[in-house]
């Protein structure tokens, strides 16, 4: 086998939280990227895909371990890489041509040389005639073409892409994907390897020669396998769909592939995030959960999730959090890539609104520790109000600051819907929604009369 271009040895990343507590985002990981392959990195949101990409490209230094480029530490070499960003990251005040020229200019290349090279690459990505336009005058797809041109113009050895197609509409993304694949296969570009971070299983299977799935808390490699399908790939092909289904299963069943976890490293405490007390709340709205359950019932109580997403022309990763939420609340079960409704879920979906809230309330308190804690704290305090810091402090043992906030936001949205408590935004406090509570219980039996 040929030598790898990039080799990551036991790389890990953590962020300091306080003096001796820190959040491990990536567990020590070995990884190698070989010439001639497109590697796709899949994983749930927050599993550290972008973090890993940044370390491999030399943008950020690993907290432990080493990233080697052709056997040399990435910090001491200057690897020739490019990144295509989800947000395009173009300079709005530069024209298309100037944007593409910028990295060449930074390297001190002659005016005429860099002109010629930039024009050529613009031609390659189908942007000739747009040199003098400004990014804001272009559509999203065109902007990302500029992003590609800017990345390719330096003839990078490895091209990194962080969800490059997810800000584009479906058709545009499809087009661009196809064109990229063509450039790669015809060797129009001298790039030796492509590393693609994505949320989109379908995209990964369509493009990649190798797929790596990350698990989260902390990020670790769950599986790493070759895609043996011949190019060009047909999405309707049964082998294709089977692979998509398989990956989906891997992603939805976090416990199938166990990962080794370090408990002590360098004498410092590292939290094993898998023993965490709080379950990660998927960021889904209660209304979305109800709608999903109704759909599953319409499909006969059990359906393939991938097909469901397709049917709804939903992106699969938009559907993910909703499915996870339904599963967490005990309203649905995930079995082999199928979502099946539970009796509780059926009762919930088929009740009228007040009863729904009651069922949701029960499920939430039964299954979600954070909500249970909030309700209990509110009931026990004399003034029935608790500041958010109280819970932030507990959550930040496990989550990053941003994630803590998101967790609380989701908890607030669920709790409000279930009328477990109310939220006073100006004082940033949880308050007990006692009033409404009683009313509902008084009123609930009424329709039965």
């Amino acid at each position, binding site marked *: 086998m040929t030598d790898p271009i990039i080799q990551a040895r036991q790389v890990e990343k953590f962020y300091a939280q306080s003096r001796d507590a820190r959040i491990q985002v990536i567990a020590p990981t070995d990884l190698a990227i070989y010439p001639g392959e497109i590697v796709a990195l899949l994983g749930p949101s927050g599993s550290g895909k972008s973090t890993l990409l940044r370390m491999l490209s030399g943008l950020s230094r690993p907290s432990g371990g080493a990233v080697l480029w052709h056997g040399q530490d990435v910090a001491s070499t*200057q690897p020739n890489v490019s990144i295509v960003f989800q947000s395009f*990251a173009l300079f709005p*005040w530069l024209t298309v041509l100037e944007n593409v020229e910028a990295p060449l200019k*930074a390297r001190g290349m002659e005016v005429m040389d860099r002109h010629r090279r930039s024009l050529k690459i613009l031609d390659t990505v189908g942007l000739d005639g747009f040199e003098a*336009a400004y990014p804001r005058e272009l559509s999203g797809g065109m*902007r990302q073409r500029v992003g590609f041109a800017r990345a390719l113009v*330096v003839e990078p050895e490895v091209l990194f892409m962080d969800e490059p197609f997810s800000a584009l509409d479906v058709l545009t993304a499809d087009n661009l994907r196809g064109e990229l694949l063509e450039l790669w296969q015809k060797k129009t570009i001298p790039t030796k390897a492509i590393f693609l971070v994505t949320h989109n299983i379908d995209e990964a299977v369509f493009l990649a020669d190798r797929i790596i799935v990350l698990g989260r808390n902390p990020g670790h490699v769950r599986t790493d396998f070759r895609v043996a399908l011949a190019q060009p790939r047909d999405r309707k092909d049964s082998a294709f769909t089977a692979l998509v289904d398989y990956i989906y299963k891997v992603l939805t069943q976090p416990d199938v592939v166990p990962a080794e976890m370090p408990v002590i490293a360098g004498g410092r405490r590292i939290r094993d995030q898998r023993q965490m007390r709080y379950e990660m709340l998927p960021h889904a709205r209660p209304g979305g959960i109800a709608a999903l359950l109704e759909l599953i019932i319409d499909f006969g109580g059990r359906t393939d999730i991938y097909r469901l997403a397709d049917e709804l022309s939903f992106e699969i990763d938009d559907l993910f959090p909703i499915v996870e939420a339904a599963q967490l609340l005990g309203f649905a079960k995930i079995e082999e890539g199928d979502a099946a409704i539970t009796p509780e879920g059926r009762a919930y979906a088929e009740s009228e609104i007040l009863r729904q809230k009651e069922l949701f309330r029960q499920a939430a308190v039964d299954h979600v520790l954070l909500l249970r804690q909030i309700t209990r704290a509110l009931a026990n305090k004399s003034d029935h109000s608790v500041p958010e810091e109280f819970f932030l402090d507990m959550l930040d043992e496990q989550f990053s600051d941003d994630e803590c906030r998101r967790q609380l936001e989701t908890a607030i949205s669920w709790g409000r819907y279930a009328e477990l408590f109310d939220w006073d935004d*100006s004082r940033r406090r949880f308050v007990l929604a006692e009033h409404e509570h009683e009313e509902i219980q008084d009123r609930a039996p009424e329709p039965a009369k």
Partner: protein
Amino acid sequence: MRPRFTLSRQLAVERTWPFFIDLSVAAALLAGFYAILWIAKFWFSAAIPEIEIHLAPSHLPLYAFYSIVRIFVAYALSLAFAIAYGYTAAYNKRLEALLIATLDILQSIPVLSFLPGVMLAMISLFPSRQLGIEMGAILLIFTGEVWNMAFSFYTSLKSIPRELMEACEIGRFSRLQRLFQLELPFAAIGLIWNSIVSVANGWFFLMVCEMFPVGSRNYRLPGLGSYLQTAASEGDFRAVTWGLVAMVLIIVVTDQLLWRPLIAWSDKFKFETVESEERVTSSVLHALRNSRVVATIERRTFRPMSEWFYNSLAERKRKHPPQAPRTESRRGVTAIYIAVGLVALAGILFAASDAVRMLRDIHRSEFFTLLAGAGLTFLRVNAALLFASLWTIPVGVAIGFQPRLSHILQPIAQIAASFPATALFPLILLALARIGVSLGIGSVVLMLLAAQWYILFNVIAGAQAIPSELKEIATLFRFSNVQRWTTVILPGIFPFLITGLITASGGAWNASIVAEYFQLRGHTLMTLGLGAQISAASDHANYAVLLAGTMIMALMVVTINRLVWRPLYHLAETKYRLD
């Protein structure tokens, strides 16, 4: 896609323009060259014992020219300082909190009470007295201009999207390249708007610091400010009028020749990726862009030079591969930081203890008068804010709600706001004296003049930010007028109003130093107040009282900011946000 420039009816006009414009550009270059010669000759001349200010209008152009130079030298210094300061604060994690806190406090300190101290220091620092006074004035104007720009640059740097920074890093931009390619363009719009405010502030202070007495000596610089002051103290109405006309001219010309083209040009630095419909246009910019001379100069000199400059930035980076031995130099840097910090601390402690020792000279009764003055000035400042709000809120809302009205009035208001209130003081005091209003009340009017614009502009912005759906709902449900104001308009403009009031209150405090103590027609008008006490103390070279007064004022401003404005601002940010 829309073409960048529409070639339409303007084509005919364009053809005739370049020649005319080329001439003007050439003339401007020549004039600039001449001006530099003149300034140098004046600055480095031997000490001029006491400058006489001539009130004949024929002297005005020269005076105006001197003042303009002062303003823009101070501005250039502030810009450089603001960029360095903002950059350091944004990227140096160790110093960030310290620098931002310093900025916050420096912003609240009344600049004008430093006038005598700074002047005396500068005069003793420079052997040529003229240069010393000149430097002192420029330094004071600088302190009036710099803080908001530094703050603006800092916030811009902090809000640069992470991906753009990474794009620079992966594209191997050196730090300086990144500054020119990303950071300055990203911050440009904020810097330009703040420059307008800063230059207006600069004129405000210039009016005062071109001529002032310290002890028995009278320091004077030839300029528009000293012209107006002399005219006022001699009661020469004609000269005052001429001076004001010159001021208006300068402001209109600056607006048309500098600010509007800059704003129009900075449109390309807008970061939002959608096209916005409202644009500032500038025929001057348009002409410059189509001028053949400018284009040639750009192509022949500017572009190759920037190319060369940029390249040199790139090469230096390459010679030093990144991340050489790091830990040792880090340790060295830390040591240097600590050493510098200790020296600075020692200096500060020494100076502070000296200052406190000076405070012991103050008599107890003097101290109580200072406190009483502080109370009175506090009342005046708030009265001024109240009256300013009373007229600016309805007017601002009216302008903000009607795009057509705002289209006409906003540029006018902008020019009016750039007019330094201090230039109008003499006229207004004379008028007030005629109808028999004392300075105690008159100073409120003066403070109002200095503070009202901040509120007006913020209210306009707030009214424009109220979503039209909310207004439509008010109409749909037939809200009464009172209801419309209390449920839609006032909550909607509240955050903006608070921002305006914070700035206005700072302006009013600063104005109190000039407003409560004024030399008019040969005698001194004054009323009891902290501002007057500060002015009088500097007038009589009573440094102990000056220091005490300044400290009290700074303390009051900072305390009010912390205890009143900040909580209100927080409330506005959380409860009354409209998004």
